[in-house]
């Protein structure tokens, strides 16, 4: 069956929704429009057991659409305010966050803090470590990268290690890193996971029309490839309809430069 016409943003939402499959009853958090719609799509389709908030303090069973809507449109099924977030979701390991750092290295370490200069005098101060240290040592994490390039997938280590990855040199002796669980990296070119030896980053699939060379050139470290990578599945009609419902103002069209189509051949 031929996939219906779709935009790349919609293909990425479907690919991102897959990261939440078979996670069990955990809180699915997608930061940013594409990850957030993806979490909603996952809950609406293959993983209804996921917990999800309205973006504020309440748990909802029907994912709330992103963008302008009535303030009280949500129907809360539970309550998860910030004052319970670390106690109930993060430090108990009952969460999977899909996040977009500013740098990622071959160990899966992420930088969200600053670029250039030093910690005492950053050239460009970004968000800071925020919740990354706690998230990555306690629960599942995946990454969404809207513009795959060597600026994000850096050679060597990220400038500031905001999150725990699989770098053996940073494994403090006697500490417990068993909670570290990095799953997938979804980019505008491909899907990767940490399935190589010692959790090396490995190519899972290429998006329609993307070549392996393109991905290698845009990645600052060696990427493991097993055989011929498959093509990332395109959205179905049903998925497109749900995406349109979860993003009624088409905010997804603004995420990727030029809003390219899903088929780029």
């Amino acid at each position, binding site marked *: 069956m031929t996939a219906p016409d779709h935009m790349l943003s919609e293909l990425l939402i479907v690919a991102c929704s897959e990261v939440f499959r078979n996670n069990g009853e955990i809180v699915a958090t997608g930061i940013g429009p594409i990850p957030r719609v993806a979490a909603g799509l996952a809950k609406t389709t293959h993983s209804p057991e996921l917990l999800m908030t*309205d*973006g*504020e*303090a*309440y748990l909802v069973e029907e994912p709330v659409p992103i*963008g*302008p*809507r009535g*303030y009280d449109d949500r129907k809360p099924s539970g309550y998860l*305010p*910030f*004052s319970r977030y*670390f106690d109930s979701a*993060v*430090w108990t390991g009952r969460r999977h966050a899909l996040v977009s750092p500013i740098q990622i290295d071959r160990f899966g370490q992420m930088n969200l*803090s*600053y670029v250039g*200069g030093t*910690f*005492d*005098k*950053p*050239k*460009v*101060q*970004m*968000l*800071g*470590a*925020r*919740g*990354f*240290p*706690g998230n*990555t*040592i*306690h629960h599942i994490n995946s990454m969404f990268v809207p513009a795959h390039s060597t600026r994000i997938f850096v050679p060597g280590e990220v400038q*500031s*290690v*905001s*999150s*725990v*990855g699989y*770098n053996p040199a*940073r*494994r*403090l*002796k*006697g*500490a*417990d*890193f068993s*909670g*570290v669980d990095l799953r997938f990296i979804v980019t505008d070119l491909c899907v990767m996971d940490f399935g190589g030896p010692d959790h090396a980053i490995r190519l899972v699939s290429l998006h329609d029309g993307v070549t392996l060379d393109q991905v290698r050139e845009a990645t600052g470290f060696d990427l493991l490839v097993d055989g011929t990578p498959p093509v990332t599945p395109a959205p179905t009609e049903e998925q497109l309809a749900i995406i349109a419902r979860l993003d009624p103002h088409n905010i997804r069209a603004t995420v990727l430069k030029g809003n390219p189509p899903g088929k780029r051949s």
Partner: protein
Amino acid sequence: MTTLDKRTTAEAVVGRLRDGMTIGIGGWGPRRKPMALVRALLRSDVKDLTVVAYGGPEVGMLLAAGKVRKLIYGFVSLDAIPLEPYFRKAREAGGLEVLELDEGMLQWGLKAAALRLPFLPTRVGLGTDVFDQGGFRTVTSPYDDGEVLLAMPAVPLDLALIHVHRADRMGNIQALGPDTYYDEWFAKAAKEVVVSAEEVVDRLDLSHPEDARANIVERCFVQHVVEARHGAHPTSMPPAYGWDMPALKAYVASAGEADGWARYRTDMIGPDEAHYLAQAGGDAIAELPLPIF
């Protein structure tokens, strides 16, 4: 009969402050910040503060005004505007003493202080640059597991500032919004707590008993009560009013001007809160729509 009366003014409270104090500020980013109290601070001579916050515009303003010697933060952000401009300026200029914490670590440090412990153990921060940047130390579990953990030091506060919907003269408070953030722990970590409230009544038990569950901290933790209608502006105060995005954008824009802060300080903050509220739209603040997340 003498009864508890903790009512005072922002000016009176600020007048008692000393340089070098450690001040915790409740709320979260641009949400339910005690801005009227912060503005009173900005109008005062107090300086060399250590500021502790899940920071929003109050942190940028205190930095811009040169009030801050050290900043302890889980983050500093305006949420819908992710990067706080005056915080960025201060960081990029160098020389600002900071303790950058994971959001959960700050909660843990406040809880340690509240429980009167020197530290609480956690895995958070291990394996990241936050560990070295913060000068943290480890502790080894004395039990058979022998696990090595980060010892998150207590973050004790001289003073905590909190803004709520209602308070009474005795220091009972009610915060009605969907989220109370970490205000409870800021209050318990502090030697003294100043609460500003949209409305101050004589006795909440007599006038609003149905909202007793919105009492986020017991009155023994509240020493000063200040009435400050629209006191969270330009941050959000659900369900009363939302954040003022045009006002926040104007504040952000000021950071791009040569004398932007001086202008904002003179034109907006001004000599007193009546001036600020007049500039900010007065009772139109009550109509600000709640943000949609």
